[in-house]
């Protein structure tokens, strides 16, 4: 689905970047509607205002590179080939969702397409991606891994052990810290005393970079440099992307802890899509109708995906019992759920 991954982005690459940011936002807006209609299972986590971060970075990867996304990286998954219908199915826990209703939201994976969704315990995926990229190194494959984590997740032991392991092993791994102001309600100053997250790079002996996370081209640029370095055997890069979480942690969170006007200011002055539209119109001489066409295409795709996903069946209870282990394994249902099965215990 994604375009070519040149260091020099063409005009059409840039339109593609626009497409990915737009579809991220539109798809999330659709999810918000479905959430309000009580059609989702579980909470809804937005990346509103952070779309450039996931999109610009994932766009720097090749087809057979592998990324591990986090809560606010829907855009990166779409670029890697997750379909909007799958995303909606994950949020509605249908039988044909990528996890068959077992896990929710962006917690899904597709190794053929090159992505591994995260699990809830934060930081764990840094260690897992150290192993994914270790396999590239051991096998001499010229592939690269990318893992995202939030400012808050930098406080976890798993992040620390994972990046340090990858640094020592010179694994081809790019670690992106999305510094978006908050971890749930906790502001950055209560998460870390560092002046900036990129200051951690020297402590791990890895390359460090920092970019404006709301400037999709700057994000792409920084990531592309890091990806090139990794592919050339230069090991790990830690990139800090500065951005801002415009919604609450999840949709239920009313952001009572956010200073007044902060959200509105970011929305007005620093929306990554608005900013990029200006770049496209002003510098790239894109015409508004071109963007309108993309918007229309996106709307149609999201509509179609919604129709597909909402007609998906729900899983049946006993489906829960398969594949805990390999080989088509199936846990036996408890006897009181399988009345035909008869007594487990026999009298002597």
């Amino acid at each position, binding site marked *: 689905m994604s375009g070519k991954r040149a260091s020099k982005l063409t005009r059409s690459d840039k339109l593609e970047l626009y497409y990915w940011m737009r579809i991220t936002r539109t798809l999330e807006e659709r999810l918000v509607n479905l959430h309000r209609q009580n059609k989702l*299972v*579980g909470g809804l986590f937005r990346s509103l205002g952070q779309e450039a971060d996931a999109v610009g970075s994932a766009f720097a990867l090749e087809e057979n590179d592998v990324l591990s996304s986090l809560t606010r990286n829907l855009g990166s998954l779409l670029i890697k080939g997750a379909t909007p219908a799958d995303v909606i199915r994950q949020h509605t*826990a*249908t*039988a044909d969702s990528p996890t068959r*209703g*077992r*896990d*929710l939201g962006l*917690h899904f994976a597709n190794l053929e397409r090159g992505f591994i969704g995260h*699990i*809830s*315990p*934060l*930081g764990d995926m840094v260690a897992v991606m150290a192993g994914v990229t270790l396999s590239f190194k051991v096998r001499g494959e010229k592939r690269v891994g990318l893992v995202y984590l939030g400012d*808050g*997740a930098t*406080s*976890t*032991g*798993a992040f620390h052990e994972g990046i340090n392991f990858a640094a020592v092993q010179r694994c081809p791994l790019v670690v992106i810290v999305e510094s978006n102001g908050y*971890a*749930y*309600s*906790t502001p950055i100053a*209560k*998460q*870390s005393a560092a002046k900036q997250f990129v200051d951690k790079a020297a402590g791990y002996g890895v390359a460090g970079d920092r970019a404006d996370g709301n400037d999709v081209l700057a994000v792409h640029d920084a990531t592309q440099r890091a990806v090139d370095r990794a592919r050339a055997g230069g090991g790990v890069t830690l990139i800090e992307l500065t951005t801002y979480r415009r919604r609450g942690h999840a949709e239920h969170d009313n952001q*009572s*802890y956010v200073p007044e006007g902060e959200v509105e200011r970011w929305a007005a002055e620093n929306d990554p899509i608005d900013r990029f539209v200006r770049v496209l119109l002003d510098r790239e001489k894109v015409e508004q109708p071109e963007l309108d066409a993309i918007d229309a295409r996106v709307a149609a795709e999201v509509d179609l995906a919604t129709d597909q996903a909402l007609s998906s069946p*729900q*899983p*049946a*209870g*006993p*489906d*829960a*019992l398969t594949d*805990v282990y390999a080989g088509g394994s199936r*846990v036996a*249902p*408890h006897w*009181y*759920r399988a*009345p035909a099965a008869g007594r487990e*215990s026999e009298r002597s």
Partner: protein
Amino acid sequence: MAEITYLEAIREALFEEMERDENVICLGEDVGVFGGAFKVTEGLQARFGGNRVIDTPISEIAIVGAAAGAAHMGMRPVAEMQFIDFIACAYDMLTNYVATSRYRTGLACPMVVRGPSGGYGRSGPFHSQNAEAAFLHTPGLKIVCPSTAEDAKGLLKSAIRDDDCVLFFEHKYLYRRIKGVMPAGDHLTPIGKARVARAGTDLSIITYGATVWKALDAAEELAKSGVAAEVIDLRTLAPLDDDAIVATVRKTNRVVIVHEDTRTGGIAGEITARINELCWEWLDAPVLRVTAHDVPLPSAPALEDFVLPQTADIVAAAQRLLTY
């Protein structure tokens, strides 16, 4: 006296204990200004200040380790896990440091680690866990699982005053669904004592946490066909109340143990073994288990409902017990 919810009862316990003893502090992710993901600690920071209600980084190892260090110095820390599932990250600190500290070096760890636990909420494999089986095995830790609002308050207050580390597992399905009238005064529920939630003579349902309510529903159902089921709410899992277990076995001679958590290696096995050792001759039927199936807990409603134990399962197990 007005009824308050299970959640409010927990909050009340925190307020009262912080008021009573300035050594009590609360720490955890988002517990301060925000009042916690479930609002359990709401208002606490406004009342007691940022020095005693501390927003921490996302660092379960450090939260538990720091609680232990502060406890050594005579504080009474109450550490929150935002969801109890994340206590897994602090497993080493709890089992290797906290649980052994007094035994090895004489340093006490009077602290509470509390947090929202349990399923039935469509929250999937990482926000629905029951952590008790992971710690039941560790000498040095105490484990409390209240099922009523009264006990939530009384047991938390006791836990905070306990001279050892108490893991306090709140069931988040009960947070706003269960209410109770708090006993007047300084309401303390003793740790280590089970409760007869419903008296009966024909069989015993031994359980704790959210499934106490399912057991009571099952008992009600059984009563319709004239079966008098006794429901034992364990309340404390470590130390287990052997006396209460033996008493109910001697009374009814038939037992089903119910827990929400997965079966293999779960607490029902331990209780079965104790019954075997302590009062095997009093059994008229094998001890049965009604538990979750041995799979990670899935999110989709139909899947979750299938995996977790339901009232009808308890009724079925009770009916089978009566065929012996």
